[in-house]
């Protein structure tokens, strides 16, 4: 059986989720080919253990994201089970490839077994769906839900120079304000809510984040109230879904729409001054305290490790 992986890239290299895609593919058994759009990350991909072949797609269309033209080039190379990350671009590209090769797609799976039984979270985390797929098909995988493959491989890299007409032209790139890590990428996320009182107080979250290499997120109330807190930081139903090993919620009440984006985190810590805040219902470790008291102590304790 063949498995085709659409590499998720980050800058000129590979994004760590690509190793997780290979890990999941290896657990099914099969011949694994990795497609690298724009050739980005080809060398990184070739050393992931379990990869048989890397196709470095160097066509002009890969210089900016256009799922329509990218998928036109990628579809002929998309054999068997096609796997991509369930990042926004992975979902979009996956859906276009599925449509072009005429197969269904199942997005954002958190488990896959031989015989293609997949599990995923539906109704914003309020139910889990198990379904069986026919092969071939496209699946996108939730980041951090699968064990990553290790290094040590040596796959051949084949360069293909095909392009397709671009219909989405990028006129201007508007850089993110901060250089902080994206919440969807982080192993540890610390998020602040309306309880932070003022956007300037997010500096206290940043300080803790710096000690443990965490990304900083926010509730919708924080994003909607304060211009300084961009939507790219929002976790929840209408923000990002995160799946870190540790999620620390500070001054966040725990509305159902916030939980939708973070309840699958492996461990949840809540810091809230209200002992009855619903966030304590999902927290593994709850601390009833104000952030003013708790964050300096947290920074200090984490600094000791």
């Amino acid at each position: 059986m063949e498995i085709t992986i659409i590499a998720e890239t980050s800058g000129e290299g590979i994004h760590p989720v690509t190793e997780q895609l290979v890990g999941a593919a290896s657990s099914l058994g099969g011949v694994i080919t990795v497609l690298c759009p724009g050739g980005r990350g080809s060398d990184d991909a070739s050393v992931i253990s379990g990869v048989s072949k890397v196709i470095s797609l160097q066509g002009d269309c890969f210089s900016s994201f256009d799922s329509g033209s990218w998928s036109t080039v990628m579809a002929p190379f998309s054999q068997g089970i096609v796997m991509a990350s369930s990042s926004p671009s992975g979902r979009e590209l996956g859906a276009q490839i599925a449509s072009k090769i005429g197969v269904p797609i199942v997005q954002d799976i958190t488990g896959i077994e031989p015989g293609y039984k997949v599990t995923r979270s539906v109704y914003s985390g309020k139910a889990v769906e198990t379904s069986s797929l026919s092969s071939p098909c496209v699946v996108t995988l939730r980041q951090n839900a699968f064990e990553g493959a290790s290094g040590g491989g040596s796959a051949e890299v084949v360069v293909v120079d095909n392009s397709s007409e671009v219909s989405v032209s990028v006129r201007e790139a508007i850089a993110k304000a901060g250089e902080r890590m994206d919440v969807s990428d982080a192993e540890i996320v610390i998020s602040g809510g309306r309880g932070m009182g003022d956007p300037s107080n997010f500096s206290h979250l940043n300080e803790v984040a710096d000690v443990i290499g965490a990304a900083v997120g926010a509730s919708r109330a924080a994003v909607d109230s304060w211009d300084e807190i961009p939507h790219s930081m929002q976790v929840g139903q209408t923000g990002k879904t995160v799946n870190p090993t540790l999620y620390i919620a500070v001054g966040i009440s725990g509305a159902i729409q916030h939980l939708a984006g973070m309840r699958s985190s492996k461990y949840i810590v809540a810091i809230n001054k209200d002992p009855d805040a619903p966030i304590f219902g999902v927290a593994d470790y709850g601390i009833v305290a104000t952030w003013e008291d708790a964050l300096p102590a947290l920074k200090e304790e984490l600094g000791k490790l």
Partner: protein
Amino acid sequence: MTIAVLLKQVPDTTAKITVSGGRVDQSSVAKWSTSPYDEYALEYALQLKEAGAGDLVAITCGPDRAAKMLTDAAAVGVDSMLHVVADTTEMDSKQIQSILAAAIEHCGADVVLCGKQAADTNSGSTGPGIASMMGAACVGMVSEVMVEGDSFSALRASSSGNERVSVSRPCLFAFDKASTELRRPNVKGIMMAKRKVIETVSASDLGIDMGESQVIIESHDSPPEKPPGQKFEGADSVQTVVLKLREEANVI
């Protein structure tokens, strides 16, 4: 020139979801709403219509109860409504996309706006899949769209921030949350909407033979219950929690 906005009715984000007999029990959902991202698509579709980009049709595929959502859309200004009556709960991505693509063609629309994903299936396949079927330019993660002469300018999220992109017809925009206010219907709009007729069709009226679903849902289950957590009083407990994160949870 016609603009289509695709709307899906989903359980309200506050609604409790219960599972019975291996399926989410639709009949126990207390409140149905338009999927949140679709509301942003609708708002921008109205703005495009007001800017003269075309007439606006709202399209849904869903059971009878979804008609209310179309009437609500008419109350804020959509010109016409198409309801493809079907039960979508067991359909795979190909089936739902082929119905909606046919519905769009039926309405003669060449500009399509939709949400980036629905709040029930949480997938995000429909927009890009339809764009592919229509041969339309696809722009996802959109938070703003404007008409500029014959083309459109959109703001979309990118890995490094945002990008302003431009596309020509045919094109499809899949909306992320936007910072715009959503409009609410006024009394006049509600009265007018009551008089508007929803065109109601079936998949076969649109000439669609959906075939069998290739994704078989085996079961729905409630998410696994988490064991109750531990709760500590006061900032002094931070030390204890950090220790537990290290020794019990092994995460730091």
